[in-house]
């Protein structure tokens, strides 16, 4: 059996005008999944890598510690020659 449908024109197809303008108002678009009953990430500062809740911040702290210590104590050995450098009274 053939399917009969009636084509309903979209506002842009019917009225043109402002409906043709790029950047149609947001009310027309489907909304994405939204979080409710919780503060927006922007309001909590979670989006910042400097926030203690950010894993990136802790990775940065560990890396900074490891690389920083290595920078203060370095030993290079080539064949019988050994050269070392250290900072401090040692």
């Amino acid at each position, binding site marked *: 059996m053939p399917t009969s449908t009636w084509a*309903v024109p979209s506002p842009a197809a019917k*009225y043109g*005008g402002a409906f043709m303008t790029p950047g*149609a108002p947001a*009310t027309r678009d*489907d*909304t*994405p999944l*939204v979080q409710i009953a919780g503060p927006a990430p922007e309001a909590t500062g979670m989006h910042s890598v400097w926030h203690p809740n950010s894993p990136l911040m802790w990775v940065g702290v560990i890396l900074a510690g490891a690389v920083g210590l290595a920078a203060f104590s370095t030993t290079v050995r080539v064949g019988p020659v050994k050269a070392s450098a250290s900072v401090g009274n040692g």
Partner: protein
Amino acid sequence: MPAVTATTGPVRYMQGIAVPAESVRPPEFFARTRRRTFNEGSQTWGGFGGQNTWELKKSDIVAAAVIRFTGSLVTLKGTGAIGSTARWPYDMAKAVRFTANGASNVINASGGKLKAREVMKKSDLNDRGVSQTFAGATVTQGTLSAASESWGVGSNTSNIADGTYAVDVYWVVPIAEDEIDLAGAIFGATSSTDLTLQVDSETAANLFTTTGTAAVTLTGSMQVTTIKYSVPIGADGQIVVPDLSLFHSYIQSATTALGTGENEVRLIGQGAGKTMLRTLFQIWNGSTPQAPLVMNDTNYGKLAWRYGSNETPDEYLSGGVLRKLNERMYNSDIGAVWGYGCMDFANENAFRDAVDMGTTSDLRLVINIQSGVTLTSPRIEYAQETIFQAGAGS
């Protein structure tokens, strides 16, 4: 971590009401819906200068409302005389306002402008051959009257004899711009809906002139009938609705800053996102009671609409030219009796002609009033018909 307790499904906002996105299926809606002609109730007319208000029933999808006044006009001259003004009978409804879901007054126009809009949109509905009395003469063209209507007494007519006259007139409130595809119709099937229709009635002094002990009494009732469409349930158990993201607006404004020669009347309410479909105008002139200037070469010179510095897309040489082109569009001589003229962008092909108000800054009507016209307290009344996404403006 901040608490995130729940999520919601995708929704679309339809005129401020959240509707599940998957429910918006226009083809299925039109296949399943049922038209309903619904009696919203009859009220005793609020009297001259009074008010009648209806809160429409919360059901279905509302496309149009029809307001009917039926009553009895009693004139008693006594020692004086009675005449009607040109506001009688259609501007008896001084302002008809419709408020929908927080968008205040999407419709706000006088009864006469609503009659004109009905003919402008529905050009197969014409007033040809319908006999009424205007300025003491019988007119059969351009009255905007249906044959089933009764004005009781003529409009703008003096020396009305004593009598009891039956009055029966109606106005259509165009909630949807198009009653076929329901563009601009309102989703009413929710308790959070607020649909209010209000009719402000004109004062007796603006409808009738009386001298001596003459008295005019008008009594009657107002009935509201709405045209609605049921909200069907789809095969998946969800409601099915058409695209109801639009608002249709018909707003009347007025200004008195007019003189002979060229007048640029700036259209108020312009906004990005709005599409203008037509602008109707009419100039009232003369000492009280005023009458509209007939749309002809004697009264009007060049007529146009303009935007920007001097962009003038449509220019009519004189009132007579616009009147003929309007009659050709509407199948009604709207300029003959009530003096209407209209810059129309939707009658033939809205997609081609409609005006994007966001890209036409400083929209204005250009109206030349001939130097031979004696202006006394002139007042231009114009009604703009627009359509726009809900939330984009009002």
